[in-house]
């Protein structure tokens, strides 16, 4: 069993990244592939990639700790110095490069829990635009139970409690009414109301306020 470096297409990040991608999400996927490819022999390959993956995963979920940046740099340097295999050496190097090249984006994730492209799982909310939704119920049928409220002819509303964002396919809506929101939250009806009856100014208990910045 050897760690197969060839299996990782993401290493050449300069060619792989598009402007819609998130660098942190990209790095996480890189480490995820590496940790699963590891043959488990060398400690840096087996435990190192897993540890880095867990830290970046916490970052993407908005659970980063204050010192995570230093921690990542520290461990990544030791990994690329100490590991036995080229695969891990290269992913560690790539990750270091990505941190260096996009330092601000990493800081934004870690300190302010924000993702510029709204890719990272913990850094956006999903909503159905009440101006666009025509009550076709496409989304209702395809989404897991109770994640979307509504019925034909009504404006659908995403149930923010117990929401598994990854289980909702944004492309399912023919009108692209399912949208992501960052820190600025749009005004939304609290529960389904008939199509056309939504009034931006009158309805909704959501004040559209900016999400409070956490102290970090």
């Amino acid at each position, binding site marked *: *069993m050897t760690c197969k470096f060839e299996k990782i297409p993401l290493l050449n990040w300069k060619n792989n990244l598009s402007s819609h991608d998130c660098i942190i999400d990209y790095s996480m996927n890189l480490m995820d592939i590496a940790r*699963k490819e590891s*043959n488990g*022999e*060398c400690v840096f390959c087996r435990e*190192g990639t897993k*540890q880095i993956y867990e830290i970046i995963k916490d970052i993407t979920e908005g659970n980063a700790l204050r010192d995570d940046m230093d921690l990542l740099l520290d461990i990544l340097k030791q990994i690329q110095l100490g590991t*036995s295999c080229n695969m891990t050496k290269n992913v560690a190097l790539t990750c270091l490069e990505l941190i260096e090249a996009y330092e601000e984006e990493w800081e934004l994730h870690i300190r302010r829990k924000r993702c510029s492209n709204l890719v990272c799982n913990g850094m956006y909310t999903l909503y159905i635009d009440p101006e666009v939704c025509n009550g076709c119920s496409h989304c209702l049928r395809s989404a897991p139970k109770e994640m979307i409220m509504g019925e034909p002819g009504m404006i659908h509303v995403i149930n923010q409690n117990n929401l598994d964002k990854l289980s909702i396919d944004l492309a399912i809506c023919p009108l692209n009414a399912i949208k992501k929101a960052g820190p600025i939250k749009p005004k939304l009806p609290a529960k389904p109301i008939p199509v056309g009856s939504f009034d931006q100014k009158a309805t909704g208990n959501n004040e559209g306020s900016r999400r409070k910045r956490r102290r970090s």
Partner: protein
Amino acid sequence: MKKVKLRMDGYIIEAKEGDTILEAALKAGIYIPHLCHHPDLEPIGNCKLCTVEVEGEPIPIQSCEKTIKDGMVIKTQTEAVKKLRQTALELMLASHPQDCTSCNKYLNCELQALMQYLGVTHSRLRHIEKKNTSLVKSDVLIKREMQRCIHCYRCIRACNELRGAKALSINKKNGEVYVGFLNDSSLMESSCRGCSACVEVCPTGAIQDVEGIFSIQTPRQISLVPCKNQCPTQTDIPLYIRLAQEGRYSDAVSVIREKLTFPHSLGYICNHQCETNCKRSYINDSIAIRDIKRFTVENDLEEKWREKTVQREKNGKKIGIIGGGPTGMTAAYYLAKLGYELEVYERMPNPGGMLSYGIPKYRLPQKIVNKELEIIIETGMKLFNNTAITSLDQLKGKGYDAILLAIGASKGRRPVEYNKIWPNAIDAVDFCRMSCEENLPELGENVTIYGGGNVAFDCARIAKKLGVKNVRIICMEARSQMLADTYEITEALKENIEILNQMAIVHVNESEGKLDSLKVTAIKNFKFTANELEFEAINGTEDALDTNTLVFATGQQPDLTETFGIELIKSVFPKVDENLQTSIKGVFAAGDVLHGTKSVVQAIASGRKAATCIDKYLGGHGNIEEVLFKRDPNPSYIGSIQGFFQLERISELKNSEDLCEEAKRCLQCDLRLDIQKAKYWVDPQFKTIRGVKR
């Protein structure tokens, strides 16, 4: 051996050519931390803890993998390598439980020692729960707590490279590796040989012996080999089983004879504590150690032990031994070899004690005993048969420098209320003796035996073989708690012997001075108080049993009284100190006389101890040990046997193939003792560096 000079941490050290940097450093007293390295295993360079800097190498390297070269300059303690080691250990600890104090390896754990050495704690990293650790379960021999595994793969290498058993492997599921049986098979399906090398090399508490398998009363190194440990004479059982398997019967007998004087007889009748405690018995039947012993003795054509046995010159001292049983004859054998003049007094027409007059002939043919007695007598001793010694006064003026009392327990002991003499009530010990002498009286149609030990079964089976129609055993214990061997019980049942469990005799009816019937009752429980037997009868279960002969198999004691001339305890047993010396200086006692009936092998062990004590008393070193077989190093490679634990015990060893198949089942528990111990940074060898400071 060519020497290589290196510079390490500012010392010039000398090392053996071909050694790795790590080996050279450890030998020179320079500690380099290491975890996946083990002195008996090939290096793999996994753990990264042994990282060092070598001049001319661009990055730090693993010292366990790199062979030394003349003039190499090595630094083991730079900031860079310290940092790397710490990070590596931190990463290992991230998925390791933090409950050190509740782990059995606590304070005996290499990982814990390394944490102290490197100053690393469970730390700043994310704690990681490994998912696959629960896939690998404990079994009856090995406790597995795989969440404690730090993936050094010593166990896998020990299993594959060292032993060749090929049972363990690195498995992978859901993108996560774990240590398990090859192809995730179960213990029974696997090729595990039960050698426990994996336990021996595991640096953490991931793989451990199940508690309770090994005695905790003896030091670990001794209790790890239960058969040898439980044998009263500590016979090197695993070795002779291995020799027997190789067909080296004569060498096997040499190993047996180092410790035992009546190996052939024991091959028939030993109570085999070794088998009872055999580690294999936790899986299926134990190894047939007794049968293997018997087979090797019977097939030893060369008798190589005779060439090696030592006979010292006469030293002019004289010892008298009272009793020619296993204890007396064993002591006589070893003392005669040490050069003493021996005189043995035997009250019966022939020596051998219980071997000749206790154990029924159907279990142990007399000619086997006689042949083994001959070997002992040949070493040089005077034997006085038909000579009962009932008082020390009889030996006055014979010029003995020491006397050994080894008269055994030759007198029956009954519950006090039955001490009356009826012509048709016989003590088991007399019954067996009469049977051996072939002068048993007419037994009648109904014979009852009172007692549930092996002797009771001997009596019952003797009676049955003599053609008695109804033989019954009355036993106070429940069937599962009987003292007799299971084998005896099943054989007795096959022979239509009736066993009445949890019953007691309440009263005996007499007519014309003879016993004629017994009143018995079912009992709930019983206990022995100072001099009496107490039991709780179940009302309304009383019954009368006709009997023509009643045999009391209720215990034996020495035939000894105060008139013998030594101090007694409980008025029958001689009082001895830890050197077996009685209240009279120079008079020793050993064997069953000290405690009542035990076993032949116990008697031999006692005889050996007596020989040692007497030799010491007479100014010798007390060393009776002989090396009759020169040991080669044990093999470390034992190979792979698929489904090893499914091999069933072979009930009868008919030929050498059977013996080979049976010996193959041995787990070879002794081999793990040859595995070297891991080194800790606190070991004294790292206190001083053996090199020149430059």
